[in-house]
């Protein structure tokens, strides 16, 4: 089958898969940012928490993704829907770069700036929101970018538990020994990763504090 025929047959399916993929990755990233950034701030504030928190995120990273999906399936509520299982597993993978970069960004703020902020009578909350976070934004964003690209790739495995996305084509292609189907999943996923990487790197550069 040539590519023109292939696309006319599967085009809407691929589009559907891409949208599902974007939903999985988008939901994962929102969750990972909501959890990872506060944890990163905590690590920067309480250095003794750095080992337990970063260590756990590191361990999560080392669990093979198929196995992690398998472990989560029997969990009550989570296991009721495939996308819940997938998003939970993906979030666990996405956390490490976000936590690490948030902590690095905040610890990297010039001590003189922090000291001045304290000396001026800013409250800890004002220092965090008006000084530390704005100054570490580009570093945090770099972590989010790494996590996003990683998640777009790993999300193809979500199809193994029936969560949909571009992985569907890859798994089907593998089962039917059909390279065209595998590529129909792999190429849009790679394109998504490249686009996300590009857009986030532009944003990151614009937010980088000039010194």
């Amino acid at each position, binding site marked *: 089958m040539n590519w023109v025929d292939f696309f006319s047959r599967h085009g809407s399916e691929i589009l559907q898969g891409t949208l599902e993929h974007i939903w999985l990755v988008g939901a994962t990233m929102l969750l990972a940012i909501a959890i990872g950034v506060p944890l990163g701030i905590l690590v920067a504030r309480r250095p003794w928490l750095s080992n337990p928190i970063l260590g756990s995120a590191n361990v999560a990273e080392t669990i093979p993704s198929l196995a992690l999906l398998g472990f989560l399936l029997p969990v009550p509520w989570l296991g009721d829907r495939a996308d819940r299982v997938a998003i939970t597993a993906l979030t666990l993978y996405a956390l490490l770069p976000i936590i690490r970069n948030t902590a690095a960004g905040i610890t990297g703020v*010039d001590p*003189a*700036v*922090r*000291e*001045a*902020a*304290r*000396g*001026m*009578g*800013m*409250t800890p909350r*004002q220092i965090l929101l008006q*000084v530390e976070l*704005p*100054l570490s934004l580009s570093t945090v964003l770099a972590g989010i970018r790494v996590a996003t690209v990683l998640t777009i790739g790993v999300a193809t495995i979500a199809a193994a538990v029936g969560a949909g996305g571009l992985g569907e084509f890859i798994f089907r292609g593998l089962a039917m020994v059909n390279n065209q189907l595998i590529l129909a999943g792999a190429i849009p996923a790679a394109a998504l990763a490249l686009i996300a990487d590009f857009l986030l790197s532009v944003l990151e550069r614009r937010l980088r*504090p*000039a*010194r």
Partner: protein
Amino acid sequence: MSGDPNIDAGREAIIEFRSAGYRLPGGQVLLRNLTCTVSRGETLVLLGRSGAGKTTALKLINRLIDPSEGEVLIEGRPTLQWDAIELRRHIGYVIQETGLFPHYTVEQNVSLVPRLERWPAERVRARSRELLALVGLDPAQFLQRYPRELSGGQRQRVGVARALAADPPILLMDEPFGALDPLTRAEIRREFQALQQRLGKTIVIVTHDTSEALLLGTRIGLVEAGALKGVYSPHEFLRSEEPVASAYVAQLHALEEFERGK
């Protein structure tokens, strides 16, 4: 309180150290048994080597650290009874690296405390312009710049303007002119002297530069190895028999002799 030679009886004490000391949690003593007062409108210069405890003494004043022994009184009230945030907004603070916020314009940097204090926008704007003019920078030219677009001397002026923003009665300066080249340093120091006379603030300056201490201080407190060796007027300091003080003075004279030798 009577009988203490450091208390200038006729004037109101704004800052008062009472046997104040500071120890690190590990036990290392950075400052011990500091007793001294600073009266309204006076400029006390704490002179000493790096690590002598000058900065520690300064940080006790605006509660960046709390004394491990004794107490520090600001306007008659121990610092521990002040709300730390309120106390710090009441005291201007200038540090050597300026600590200007790199992501804020000069205007945003200078207006920081007034904005924290929720002044109305119009008043904040007017005050920023007034402050820049006060430290010798043209508001039209500098308000919208970022710190990275300023020279070292300009940055230091902005740092002083920011500290003065909410018109605090007390000003603390930690090596304020230390990072500047000698010529800019002399220039800013002269301007600061003029400013000092005009504003009548109570000022505590930390420095290791003897000529700076003599020029800016109404009194000089000599700090050595975590203890205050004595408080002198500039004239007393020049004639002091105290070994450390005379060492500083001798170093000054060495320079003069070199000039005479030429």
